[in-house]
């Protein structure tokens, strides 16, 4: 799954490439479409505000679990 941070990084790349000297029209339209898609997904990420609080639990075998805390 693409993270918000990855999406933003990709958007920065797209903007930088579009700003560059050597972009032909078809490439520009391709980048623009990809940019719009990423912007839409990133906006959805932002809207999905969930400040969850969990607690880290270490099991006897050294593996970890997350427990929902009732904070």
């Amino acid at each position, binding site marked *: 799954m693409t993270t918000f941070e990855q999406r933003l990084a990709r958007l920065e790349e797209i*903007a930088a490439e579009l700003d560059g000297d050597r972009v032909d029209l078809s490439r520009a339209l391709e980048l623009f479409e990809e940019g719009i898609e990423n*912007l839409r997904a990133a*906006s959805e990420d*932002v809207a999905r*505000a969930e*400040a*969850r609080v969990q*607690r880290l639990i270490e099991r006897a075998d*050294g593996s970890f679990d997350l427990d929902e805390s009732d904070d």
Partner: protein
Amino acid sequence: MTSPRRRAPRRAGAADLDLFEPSDAPRVVPPPEPARSYVSELIEHVGYPGESARSAVTVSMLTETARDVIEGAFIPIWVRGEVSDFKAHRNGHWYFCLRDRAAQIRCVVWNRDQFRIPAAPDNGMQVAAFGRLTVYAARGEMQFTIAKIEADGDGLRRKALEITRARLEADGLLALDRKRPLPRFPRVIAVVTSPDGAALHDISAVLRRRSANVRLVVVPAAVQGASAPEELCFALDQVNRWGGADVVIIGRGGGAHEDLWAFNDERVARAVAACRVPTISAVGHEIDISICDLVADVRAATPSAAAEAATRSQAELRGELAQLSSRISSAARAVVRASADRLRHLARDVAAASSDHVASRRAQLETVAGRLHVLSPLATLARGYAVARGEDGSTLDSVAAFRDRMSFELVVHDGVVPAKVTRPRKESR
């Protein structure tokens, strides 16, 4: 660390509490009475122990009796004095004297009790020491056995801080170029703190207010008390082994100076430095900076400030996205515009190039036509000359070509005239 005053009664020992009320005047305990028969026998033959040369007691008996008396007489107490002759012995124990103008007492801090004392005292320090008066029989000396020391002006803590700081500095752990940038958009924030402390509450309140899209993962640890340094180290180690956090906040809410002490512990500082992800330290509301603050990548004044440093608000993120969006749109528009411009230029170039071509062709044509014109007999004819052609079309260009009564034609510039030879031929010359 809990207050010494609260702990004092427990350290006094159950027997002391049951038998004595703490009082200012030291109480003397009478030596235990020997069994009746032995005593009466002793008194009958030699008198009371030590009463005469014959009943002289041993040195051991004397010092042991003195120890019983003295150690039974005092509950643990705080004593104020100046430190002198301090020696940290090879065996790990500390020896020194506490003195005032008129008196002094030998003191010892056993190795096992030193963990409660931030740092070894220096000669000349004014301190209050908590301990019990004992007798060191081997030397026949009184000795104050100390469990806690508090120096005036918190001198020991400051000394401990300086020592820890110097050691961390020597290992390069305080170097500014070690500081890592925080992730711009963390998804998981580990919080090493007490699960029911104010810090956790403050942090989650900030995240809710900012509607930040992050998960808080609490890694519980005691933040004060004797076990706090170890628990904090363990929790940081858990964060490392778990590997699911993007950033770690370690800290606690405000409290008394000594409640924050665990965050000055060298082990905790080293555990923070060993953290695999960037760290934010948020210890209390103190203006004083803890050692933990110095080692962490970012120091926040409070846990709330730490939460703000770690996350971006929804509004901020929306702003960022809007900026990217307009940057991409205008860049794309610029590309389209540039392409359209290029196309227009090309069209003009093609048009210009083709019209040039036609003109030059025309000029060429005209030149050729001109030359053709010059060469054409029509031009000569136009000047008034005529060409005689026979009936077979051959040019009749000499007298000999004409026969008597022969028909021929004259070609002039605008047509052909039929003609006939009517007179005999006459050659010129």
